[in-house]
């Protein structure tokens, strides 16, 4: 559509719309489920519950904006938890173990990026392959069982009772917020970020204009992997074990967050705020319905309806505010 006067209005909606959907859903649940739902304690709980998917969605936002996709994130998270647990068992200090977990995500991401740029296959196939490979590696590394690691402060990163109580929420939530801001800034204000948009928007053009497409993709997948490694750290913090079966199928939740938040699977569109809103939306729906104790199958149906509804709302809003 040709709507040039909208240029300034154009940048906000992608995220604003999903934030609106989020607010509406939160309000409806607050009315329905009452104080237990909107209590501060439950708000903190929901934030904590969203962190893993949200952190994964940060990386996925980058990758999807650059026109890619990463199906292997769930497996990466599992591998990361296993590596952290193994490191702790081997006596590494918690900080090092955590860094190792994040780093292994980065390595996996770099491998994805390398294969995507070298083999010339669609990322769907590559990361479908590495989904299996990383999962297998996690299982093999763990000796086909959960790895119990000693309890350290890593397991406190997502506590609901943060120790200086003025911090309000756990350090893991704050870290995720900081990372989100960092990713948003990278996307907006760095050459890498703009090139990611350019590649997702029109790869041939980007190449013709001298963008180092391969290198940018490699960076993007690697950064995405590091963020997923961070999600793995958060997962470990929550589970307190290295679990090779963790986060199975979570790739769908993570991709869904990005798409609900306005990301386009054909690339060039997506926003950090939107993806976070998407992740929160799913937690809110789950928590609200779970709290009311509706049967699981009803919860499934309602979740489906609400997701479609919230995104439709977003679209309608954009249209009425948009064209003309």
């Amino acid at each position: 559509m040709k709507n040039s006067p909208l240029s300034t209005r154009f940048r906000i909606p992608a995220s604003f719309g999903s934030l609106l959907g989020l607010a509406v859903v939160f309000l409806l649940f607050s009315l329905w489920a009452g104080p237990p739902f909107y209590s501060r304690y439950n708000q903190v709980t929901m934030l904590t519950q969203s962190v893993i998917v949200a952190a994964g969605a940060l990386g996925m936002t980058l990758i999807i904006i650059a026109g890619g996709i990463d199906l292997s994130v769930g497996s990466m998270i599992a591998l990361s938890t296993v590596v952290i647990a193994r490191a702790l068992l081997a006596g590494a200090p918690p900080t090092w173990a955590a860094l190792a977990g994040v780093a292994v995500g980065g390595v996996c991401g770099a491998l994805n990026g390398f294969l995507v740029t070298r083999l010339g296959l669609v990322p769907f196939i590559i990361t479908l392959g590495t989904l299996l490979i990383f999962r297998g590696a996690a299982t093999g590394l763990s000796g086909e069982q959960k790895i119990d690691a000693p309890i350290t402060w890593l397991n406190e990163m997502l506590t609901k009772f943060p120790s200086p109580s003025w911090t309000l929420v756990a350090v893991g939530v704050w870290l995720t917020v900081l990372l989100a801001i960092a990713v948003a800034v990278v996307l907006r204000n760095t050459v890498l970020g703009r090139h990611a948009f350019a590649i997702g928007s029109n790869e041939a053009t980007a190449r013709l204009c001298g963008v180092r497409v391969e290198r940018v993709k490699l960076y993007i997948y690697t950064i995405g992997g590091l963020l997923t490694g961070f999600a793995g750290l958060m997962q470990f913090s929550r589970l307190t074990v290295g679990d090779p079966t963790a986060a199975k199928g979570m790739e769908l939740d993570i991709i869904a967050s990005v798409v609900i938040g306005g990301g386009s699977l054909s690339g060039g569109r997506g926003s950090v705020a939107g993806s976070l809103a998407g992740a929160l939306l799913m937690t809110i729906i789950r928590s609200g319905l779970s709290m009311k104790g509706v049967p699981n199958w009803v919860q499934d149906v309602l979740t489906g309806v609400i997701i479609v509804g919230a995104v439709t709302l977003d679209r309608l809003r954009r249209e009425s505010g948009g064209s003309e």
Partner: protein
Amino acid sequence: GGSNAPHRLTIAVIPMGTTHEYWKAIHAGAVKAAREENVELVWKGPQKEDDRTQQIAVVEDMVSRRVNGIVLAPLDGTGLAKPVAEARRAGIPSVIVDSGLQGEDYISFIATDNYKGGRLGARRLAEILNGQGSVIMMRVMVGAESTMRREQGFLDEIRNFPGIRVLSDNQYGGITTETAYQTGENLLNRFPDVNGVFCPNESTTFGMLRALTDAGKAGKVKFVGFDSSEKLIAALRQKQLHGLVLQNPFRMGELGVKTVVRHIRDPHAPIEKRIDTGAVVATPENMDTPEIRQLLVPPVNQYL
């Protein structure tokens, strides 16, 4: 509630999943106890079946909702320890059923001894094989505590029978029947001369049963499984299955709710830390005795 009736207790029962006969039996037992104790029951499993993270979230949701007590079948002995500890901190006591939990933050642990269950299965298989032959064991999935203990129990016990050789014990059937079925088919194609099979849960047992039926080997290969369902009972009757290790999920649900309610009403009441609900082997011969019958077909319809 602003009613003048005495405040009714709310008890959350959190299974590992909801779509399975086994959990239905636990649910029914819990309902029975809830009726008898006059408490309100919230039955809530993780939205994604068998997902640890989601089960943690459900426990947290129930804490936010401020239920009075929790009965939990933890998917993960370690991962669920922290939310249970947090519940305790928030003044909400928990009883653990079915599968163990680390730490001391719960009142009681009510379950089958899964390791023993696995050994029972091994003994039954050895018995019908007369201590001779080659067998395979199909596993369920990596990291699932209760089935891993059954698998271990089976392997440890079968070793006591020198005439029995384990051909394969490293293939996983996965959590759906279809994947178990395919793994079963592949195993049977690979070992056409197998004499006996053991499967450590309902879905693998059923998947393997389908594979055996398909290959025309049902009844010829000696087969011992775990847990019950209509199809498995029928197979037992037709002697396609030669043994089913049975737990008592109905009792687990019932005792779970009763125990937590007892603790809430009298925090100082003496409660056993570990309650074994027992495991028995159903065979084509004993399946019509009342005790076994009740375990094979728990009185689910009466309560749900």
